[in-house]
């Protein structure tokens, strides 16, 4: 087989024609993709959108996570505002109660001291344990067991 003849034969094979209906469709799509075909307002907003924004660069990859975090933060802020409005009233209400409770506790403590006297076992119990200086082998209990 002569290579040149083979190549020439391949070259003579006519290629398929591009479908004629594609021309209008592709040109129309290309024309509509041109920035000049947009109205000025859309073009301006498009240019603004195309401008790289640091904020959008940071937020866009995790947009949902950031939105969720924002919602949670707003909720916490709202709760904080609401609770701050109530807090003086709560303090006013709770203050006398805690004063009464302190008086009652002091009374009970006084009664307990009177009942138990000065040598209370609680004080003994609070004493630190004395460490045995002898080695374990010389302790009386250990010798008895051996």
């Amino acid at each position, binding site marked *: 087989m002569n290579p040149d003849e083979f190549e020439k*034969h391949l070259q003579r094979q006519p*290629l*398929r*024609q591009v479908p004629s209906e594609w021309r209008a469709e*592709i040109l129309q799509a290309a024309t509509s*993709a041109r920035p000049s075909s947009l109205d000025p307002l859309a073009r301006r907003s498009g240019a603004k959108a195309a401008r790289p924004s640091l904020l959008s660069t940071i937020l866009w990859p995790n947009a949902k996570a950031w939105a969720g975090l924002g919602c949670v933060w707003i909720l916490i802020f709202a709760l904080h505002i609401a609770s701050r409005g109530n807090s003086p009233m709560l303090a006013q209400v709770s203050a006398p109660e805690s004063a009464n409770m302190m008086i009652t506790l002091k009374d009970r403590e006084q009664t307990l001291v009177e009942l138990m006297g000065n040598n209370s076992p609680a004080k003994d119990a609070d004493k630190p344990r004395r460490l045995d200086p002898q080695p374990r082998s010389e302790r009386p209990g250990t010798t008895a067991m051996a």
Partner: protein
Amino acid sequence: MPDKSDLQRLYDEHAQALFAFLLNFTRDENDTRDLLQEIFSRLAREPGLLRGAREARAFLIRLAHNAAIDLIRRRGTRQKYHDQLAEEESYIFAVAKDADEAAFRESLSRALAGLPADQRAVVHLKLWENLTFEQIAETLDISPNTAASRYRYGLDKLREHLRPLYEEIK
């Protein structure tokens, strides 16, 4: 920026060549249409895209080749399926009236589909765009030696595959 008449002129001058190249490269008519539209949309969008190009045809084929490679990369794992598809369909030649010629074109289309895409691109540009190896090298961003060797390997495979049919119709 090319206006509408410029785009029409570019389409009329180059769409056929781009269509044939893309159809041979992708072996899929829908992909070919999408890529062709992508190229002309880009030409419409980007001012002066062709301004620095020495040869518009070579530049557009380079755009087409890069766009086709991007498409294949985007598909990633689906490439295997795509390769399989390439061997099954999309005859790139016109329908022949003569039965022998029709059989030869069908076999040639299948044989081309069986080539690796890089060899297929070089063979196409050499045989049907009549580009030199230097031009092919510039278009596909490879060395002229690589272009020549890919062409030789590709042509050898086509010759081997088509020998019986070619001997018959010669």
